[in-house]
């Protein structure tokens, strides 16, 4: 297990390096000089940047400066905001995105397991039909539509009751977080529900559940000890990609709900072509996602004895 952990960590580091290099090369292939034009007219910013990145030096040298900075955890300075460190931007805005994301992941995972198990137990009966219809909707409706419709509904509900049930946009209190987290987790929850359902169905038909029945165990014990635990395993394996989906989905939800998260900042940077912020946040997000996947895989290994003991 330790060897496996080490191997995964090394793989992860190589992947992050690959992402950093790809980002660097991509940004240096942007047509034209990133400092030209109206974007960095401010002479002070320009001078700062040139000194920092050695923009007058050859590409290889720039690359080593860039990687060196990254190794020191320095993502550079914003192109559009004078003397604003990308590190500061991340430090300021990422906790907001992380809070929203964690809420959404918890919501999606709990909901997915619960609804999935329920539909499998009530297979082909009314609860199954209703939930699976909602799940298909959840998978087919893009997150921005959920966000917009959620907001629209909330506006109308607030108007209907004449009081503010929940704030429509913004950030700060728990009440600000509920609707965005719900909206953000919706698609993933639908996906996990489907996965949990098929996993449960497979296990309900498995030989070892038949054995458990032959042992005369009560249905509740079979459900908790034999079905649920085994059915959750595949759900855990996809939590890594689910976290990635929720993180990128956050870009849109933050935009719609005017939440000051890193995602919204990233989208703005992309729209303004703020190259250092794009590079910095891409590498940061990339590293975050790569290591989340590793954490989830290790968690899975710890839970599944077949992996843990080999």
């Amino acid at each position, binding site marked *: 297990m330790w060897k496996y952990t080490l191997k995964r960590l090394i793989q992860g580091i190589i992947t992050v390096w690959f992402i950093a290099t790809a980002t660097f090369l991509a940004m240096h292939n942007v047509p034209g000089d990133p400092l030209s034009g109206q974007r960095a007219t401010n002479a002070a910013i320009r001078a700062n940047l040139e000194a920092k990145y050695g923009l007058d030096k050859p590409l290889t040298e720039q690359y080593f400066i860039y990687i060196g900075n990254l190794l020191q955890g320095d993502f550079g300075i914003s192109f559009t905001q004078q003397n604003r460190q990308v590190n500061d931007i991340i430090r300021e805005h990422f906790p907001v995105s992380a809070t929203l994301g964690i809420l959404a992941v918890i919501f999606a995972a709990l909901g997915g397991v619960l609804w999935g198990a329920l539909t499998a137990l009530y297979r082909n009966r009314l609860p199954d039909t209703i939930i699976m219809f909602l799940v298909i909707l959840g998978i087919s409706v893009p997150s921005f539509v959920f966000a917009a419709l959620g907001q629209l509904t909330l506006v109308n509900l607030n108007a209907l009751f004449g009081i503010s049930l929940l704030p429509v946009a913004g950030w700060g209190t728990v009440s600000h977080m509920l609707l965005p987290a719900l909206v953000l987790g919706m698609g993933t929850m639908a996906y996990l529900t489907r996965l949990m359902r098929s996993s449960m169905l497979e296990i309900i038909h498995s030989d070892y559940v038949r*054995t*458990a029945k*032959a*042992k005369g165990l009560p249905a509740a014990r079979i459900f908790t000890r034999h079905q649920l635990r085994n059915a959750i*395993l595949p759900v855990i394996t996809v939590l890594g990609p689910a976290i990635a989906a929720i993180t990128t989905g956050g870009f849109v939800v933050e935009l719609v709900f005017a939440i000051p998260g890193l995602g919204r900042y990233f989208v703005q940077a992309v729209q303004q072509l703020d190259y250092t912020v794009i590079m910095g946040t891409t590498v940061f997000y990339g590293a975050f996602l790569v290591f989340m996947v590793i954490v989830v895989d290790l968690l899975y290994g710890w839970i*599944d004895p077949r992996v843990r003991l080999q």
Partner: protein
Amino acid sequence: MNPPLLEVSNLQVEFDTYGGTVKAVRGVDFTVEEGRTLAIVGESGCGKSVTVQALMGLIPMPPGRIMGGSAKLRGIEILGRKTVEGREVRGAEIGMIFQDPMSSLNPTMTIGDQIAEPLQVHRGYSHRQAMARAVELLELVRIPEAARRAAQYPFEFSGGMLQRAMIAMAISCKPTLLIADEPTTALDVTIQAQILDLLKDLQAETGMAIILITHDLGVVARMADAVAVMYAGKVVEAGSVDDVFYRSSHPYTLGLKQAMPTNKRDAVQKLMPIEGSPPDLFAPPVGCGYCPRCPHAMSVCATQPPLPIPVADAHYARCWLHHAQAPHSVPGIYYGDGHD
């Protein structure tokens, strides 16, 4: 004679499938005596596994359906019981082991925990007591280093070891009947013999009865006291192992014997396969299910289902050849002492 331990009569099971309704078991009768072994023999798809799964309440419903019949354990009906008493019968009174031990154990629970479960549920043992008993049971089924093994997971066991663990689990509550559904089919030949010996020894020690499902006549000869031969969802011949082997009364039993290799020195006879394949149970035949493949079929066989006709004490065959009006002239068929 004591009343039988288990008496099954006219058991019928159907399955709804994509292609239609399969009448998998079409009226099965047999009895199991206390402490004895009944072997149920037949080729794949003849309904032998479905029969015992119905007894254990393991038929998935839907798509399965028990259409009728009864199964009495010491005179108490056990068929179709989903209640608490039904669970008490399963696991406590009747233990069961399956064909593929690799997939029949929960991969994420230790062997010890899985053996301990029935004890906790049916006997009210604490977890500690049940685990201690699980280790004893593993020793009983001759697993070395039982204490260490009990803490391991199924993937750390070999196939033979898993089947021993399955047996330990099935006998944990000292059942009066053990159902073994093709217990050795998935195992190596050398392991098969060990498992069969183990079952025999355990039977001698505990006095439990065994229903052994198999398609291997060698296993039958080695293990069984009584035999029921199944074909197309019905028992076509039943009797003691000697009756069925040496005084076969049904052409199908005869066919099975001729298809089995022997190691007699002077045997020059060729292996004789049974031509054709079993009938389609989506639309079961009107007459005898074996009629299309039977070399001795008569007109009546195609139109009337044969009823069981006794040929000797506790030995019957479901075959028109034994009818009083039939010629009684087929070579190899045993017609009872009066006719031979």
